[in-house]
């Protein structure tokens, strides 16, 4: 599914440069649910951004679904992102002047689907996250948990191969976090591959595999017994 070899990335800071990723090797199979953990500055977000094609590595190899991701033009990156990836952000990043349905349907718009099809698919995914009745509400009329669920529906809309979540529960209270995790787990149960960045141990423990980063290298990569979020809900 996803294969990373000797990935390096550094950022220029003034005259010197900051070496953020120092040779990452990672391979994720289809159907996995991986948590990437680490303190701030460990390079976990950078890794996720490179996987999300929002950023490009300086060195190393990145193969996603047998497609080598290298020397992408902005246009090609956009098309790959649209086709392969679904993003879930900590701050939801919904477009505030578009209602829930339009937000969910946005990736489909960039796929070039007809309006009717987009509405149909959008409603289907909204129903899946249990917000069909909220389809025509604007984001600021929704609670945090609802916003994140709309964002998840949006990430799912284009039927991506890989879901990337950057601290998906970071802006939510514990109860809502568990609800969201429960939902993400159910997505994983259906076979979606999920990669999430988190710094919360209990959230990470709800994944099937935990990868720990420190100072740009992987210090631990273990498969864990998944804690079901449903027991807290």
């Amino acid at each position: 599914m996803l294969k990373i070899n000797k990935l390096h990335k550094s950022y220029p800071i003034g005259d010197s440069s900051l070496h953020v990723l120092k040779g990452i090797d990672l391979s994720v199979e289809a159907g996995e649910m991986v948590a990437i953990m680490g303190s701030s500055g460990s390079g976990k977000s950078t890794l996720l951004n490179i996987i999300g094609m929002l950023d490009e590595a300086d060195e190393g190899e990145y193969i996603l679904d047998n497609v080598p991701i290298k020397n992408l033009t902005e246009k090609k990156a956009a098309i790959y992102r649209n086709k392969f990836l679904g993003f879930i952000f900590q701050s939801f990043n919904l477009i505030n002047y578009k209602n829930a349905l339009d937000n969910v349907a946005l990736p489909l718009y960039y796929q070039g689907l007809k309006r009717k099809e987009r509405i149909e698919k959008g409603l289907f995914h909204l129903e899946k996250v249990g917000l069909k009745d909220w389809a025509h509400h604007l984001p600021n009329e929704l609670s945090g948990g609802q916003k994140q669920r709309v964002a998840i529906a949006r990430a799912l809309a284009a039927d991506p191969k890989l879901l990337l979540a950057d601290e998906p529960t970071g802006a939510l209270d514990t109860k809502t976090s568990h609800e969201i995790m429960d939902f993400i787990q159910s997505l994983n149960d259906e076979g979606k591959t999920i990669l999430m960045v988190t710094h919360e141990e209990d959230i990470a423990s709800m994944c099937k595999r935990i990868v720990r980063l420190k100072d740009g290298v992987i210090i631990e990569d273990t498969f864990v017994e998944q804690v079901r979020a449903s027991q807290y809900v």
Partner: protein
Amino acid sequence: MKFLFERDTWQEVYDSLTKNKLRTALTMVGVWWGILLLIGLLGSARGIENSFNRLFGSFATNSVFVWAQSTSKPFKGFQEGRQVQLKISDAKKIEENVEGIEFVVPRNQSQALVVHNFLSGNFGVNGDYPLLDQVQKKKMIQGRFINQTDIDENRKVVVISEEIYKQLFEKDAEMIGEYIQLNGMNFKVVGMFETGNANMGPSSDIHIPFTTFQQIYNMGENIGWMMITGKPEYDISQIETDAKLILRNLNKVHPEDNRAFGSFNLGKEFAKITGFLTGMQFLTWFVGIATLIAGVFAIGNILLITVKERTKEIGVRRALGATPFEIKRQVVLEAVFITLIAGLLGIISGGSLLMLLDALYGQGDEAMLVNASVSISIVFIALVILIVLGTLIGLIPAFKATSIKPIDALREE
């Protein structure tokens, strides 16, 4: 270009423009005002031009009127202060010798007591050739103008203006074939023309055949003045100079005596006015286009701010799979759309302004503005300019929007 006809494209434009309605409206003011100015001023300039054209319309504009005065220099034994008299032969000589002449029309004028039944008045009476109709077009309401037979047979016929008719005849009274008295002589009315707007030279309300005038006023070969018309491709000022030079020669006047012959160069006067109008139109275009450009820049500026504000949204869109081209296209489309809407509003209000001006100043014969309007091609040109400018100015925020990497755009708070 297919995207232009898709509802979603416009939905996106509508959504982002209505997000901040007040700002969108304020953005449009510049372009709206520019177009309003352009349409309003061009229309008014056209209105003034039309009213001048109506005023001068009956005259051949490349004409000069020449009359004789008294000399100011002694010459060939004559004292200065001698009254010079124009003759028919002078007119003929000018016609034969000056290059570029179209017509030379000798004219005579006098005052006469005009009587019809119990109504009377003192009016100027002109002795004229049929040719006058070529130089100073008479719009005949009834009957005809003087013709060659009238001249040949010294007929006692008269052509009057509508104004004279109103003063001498009962309302709606028949007048063709009626007789009126000029200084006690009966003249048969053969035609009536529309009273002209412009008063060029002596009043021109009653015309009798030139030869008849010669006879009854005992003029001999003398003429009062003449109208000279040049062919369109010749410079009327040159014709004026040449004609006067010949006249001085024929009448034994000093070649440098500028006072002996008076003249009024209609062509020159007309050129002054048309020059003024052209200048005004140029100014209008200049001011209008400059305002438009300023307005369009204002739109570009605001869009730049909008794009800056929407950095994160643009980042999200790109993360969701929007290509840089799609983002740019959207921003440019917004720019063009705002510009175009502002322009259309400007055209509509400009049109309304012209209608208002027309209602206030465009009615009646003495109207200052006649048919103040702009042609559809000017409106079209303005719209095309707007689209082009809107596109160009939209490119700046468009490139700004995609110059930030999506990762940085997403980090933006």
